[in-house]
């Protein structure tokens, strides 16, 4: 599972993670559950239907399939299986009846979503082997993550017997098993790091395993370490810069040098903030979580960049471990 504060790039990271895990001939399923069509946007394809389809080929012959789980469709699927609604099901959906039912019992929606993901994890092929080597779930943001995963609480909303109840128990077991890890994406600034650390504690209380912290969009630091604090405080020696530029044949007007100085101060403030944030991740929690870092891509994330990020993850040791 991949989560993170909104805006940290968790969908991009989930996609890169799926690509990295598929490297070397593996088959990976990438699942989204929020009806956002985030996966389609990251891979620059048409919106995904509610079915598993191949979305990318990974280095070494692996493949990534993608699935956009839709809680209404999932609920209809259950009803279909157990009650044979037939054509009426679709009409009910149009009338908003399904939305209504999931609103009556908010936990129901989450159980349906995680239930579908669980079915994909446990499904086996004709040869008896798991259909997927790994399933990467682009989970809701950290603010809603633990509620989303807390199936036991959701089940309190539900009738004590019945098909969904059984499903929920299975989901609960899977989430608390070593097969599941939650990876948290963060940026190196105050609020996301605080939220990440809060979530780690929350997950621990809920007895759910936390995987790695993924530091996303790590800025390239150009200033020497010893200059950062001074520059962040506004102390940049403009004359040294002018001399340095002159030596490379660049003669700039004083106002232009001032512009460079202002850019340098902003850069230094940002770098100092990132260093402080990294420091927190070094010491909290105790012992700290394993960490993956992804670079800030100045030109944005297109499909090519996604492969770059995946490669970076592979180099940092991301792979599918043998499942037993």
């Amino acid at each position, binding site marked *: 599972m991949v989560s993170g504060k*909104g805006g940290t790039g968790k969908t991009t990271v989930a996609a890169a993670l799926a690509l990295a895990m598929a490297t070397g001939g593996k088959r990976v399923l990438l699942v989204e559950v929020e009806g*956002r069509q985030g996966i389609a946007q990251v891979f620059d394809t048409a919106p995904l239907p509610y079915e598993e389809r191949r979305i990318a080929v990974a280095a070494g012959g692996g493949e990534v399939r993608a699935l956009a789980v839709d809680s209404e469709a999932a609920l209809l699927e259950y009803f279909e299986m157990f009650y044979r609604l037939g054509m009426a099901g679709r009409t009910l959906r149009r009338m908003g*009846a399904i939305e209504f039912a999931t609103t009556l019992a908010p936990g129901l929606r989450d159980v349906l979503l995680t239930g579908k993901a669980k079915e994909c994890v446990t499904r086996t092929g004709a040869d008896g082997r798991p259909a997927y080597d790994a399933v990467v779930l682009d989970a809701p943001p950290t603010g809603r993550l633990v509620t989303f995963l807390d199936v036991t609480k959701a089940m309190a909303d539900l009738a004590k017997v019945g098909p969904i109840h059984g499903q929920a128990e299975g989901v609960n077991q899977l989430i608390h098993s070593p097969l599941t890890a939650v990876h948290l994406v963060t940026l190196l600034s105050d609020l996301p790091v605080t939220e990440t650390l809060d979530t780690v504690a929350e997950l621990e209380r809920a007895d759910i395993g936390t995987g790695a912290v993924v530091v996303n969009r790590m800025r390239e630091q150009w200033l020497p370490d010893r200059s950062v604090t001074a520059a962040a405080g506004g102390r940049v*020696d403009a004359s*040294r810069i002018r*001399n340095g530029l002159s030596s490379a044949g660049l003669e700039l007007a004083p*106002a232009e040098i001032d512009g460079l100085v202002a850019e340098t101060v902003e850069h230094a403030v*940002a770098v100092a903030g990132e260093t402080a944030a990294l420091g927190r991740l070094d010491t909290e929690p105790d012992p700290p979580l394993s960490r993956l870092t992804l670079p800030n891509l100045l030109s944005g994330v297109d499909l090519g960049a996604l492969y770059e990020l995946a490669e970076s993850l592979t180099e940092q040791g991301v792979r599918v471990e043998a499942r037993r």
Partner: protein
Amino acid sequence: MSSSDTLEVDTLIDDPETRVIVCCGSGGVGKTTTSAALALRAAERGRQVVVLTIDPARRLAQALGVDELSNDPAPVPDAEGELAAMMLDMRRTFDEMVQGHAPPEKAQKIIENPFYQVISSSFSGTQEYMAMEKLGQLVAAGTWDLVVVDTPPSRSALDFLDAPQRMSRFLDGRMIKLLAAPARAGGRGLRKIVEAGFGLFARAVSTIIGGQMLQDASAFVQAFDTLFGGFADRAEKTYALLRSPGTAFLVVAAPEPDALREAAYFTDRLSAEDMPLAGLVLNRTHPVLAPVSAARARAAAEQVGGPGSQIAAAVLRLHADRVELHQREEHLLTRFSAAHPSVSVVRVPALAGDIADLDGLRRVGGLLAEGAVRGAEEPGATSRAQGAS
């Protein structure tokens, strides 16, 4: 460069005809900060302003003096001029609405109903609906001549416009009536199929979520039925207010593909609904402050020598990064403006650190009003060395 006009923020907030400003946009683009900065600037320029914030970060809330939920506007300490601020308490707003429309005993019964508690706290459209309701109240109060509204941090900016209707669909009780008493005989054709399906559906739903919830829902609808008309009227009035010429929508975005995509959806929607769009606020941009191209800067970074060479190389490389970032941001904005040429735009450069006090808000307000195109196109106009400190 994009060809769109610059949004004149001061003209907008100084115009006495501007009575309501609604700041919309997807989550995480700085809507709350923009709303608060605009409200403060308007107040300090002589308007009597109230700002309705939805979910401010703690330090910003403290700066506005709204760190406890009050659900009523309170004067902002230290603001010059007349500024009041409040933070929406959706549960209380909903309760007060019920109390305002029903006799005390009946209101109490509704508020205690478990189904009401679900709807008023966790239904995904409640916050938007209540923000609209509160906006209506603040305008009706007549105490302020400008109301600035932040919108809930939903994923999509459209939620703000759609949620009240979705909410109404739930509250009008049609669905619950069907669920509670689905067995009506005598349908024909498709209707018969649907009703038969509905019977099955109701049974399926109660198997899954339990009969108790349905009973609560049904009791709620019966009690709520007589209130519904009043609620719907109010929502209708607020909608009319949003369409009136005294209202200005500001779409807030960050220079990122997702945020600008949402901004584009919202812009189209506003124009389809005849709602008045004042412009786009593009937060957290990175203007280039020295006229050196990325390629030139990178090449020079390899050539520097002598004293100051290390710092000069670093400065050139960070400048090159910034130029590339700026180009990407301008490219994204150009794409937006090409599709929406009539939308005027103001860019607000990124500030380091969180905005946590009134001075920070004043600075943002100043940047909003400055409006002029900043960037490499106008070297020298931008000695903002203090801008980041």
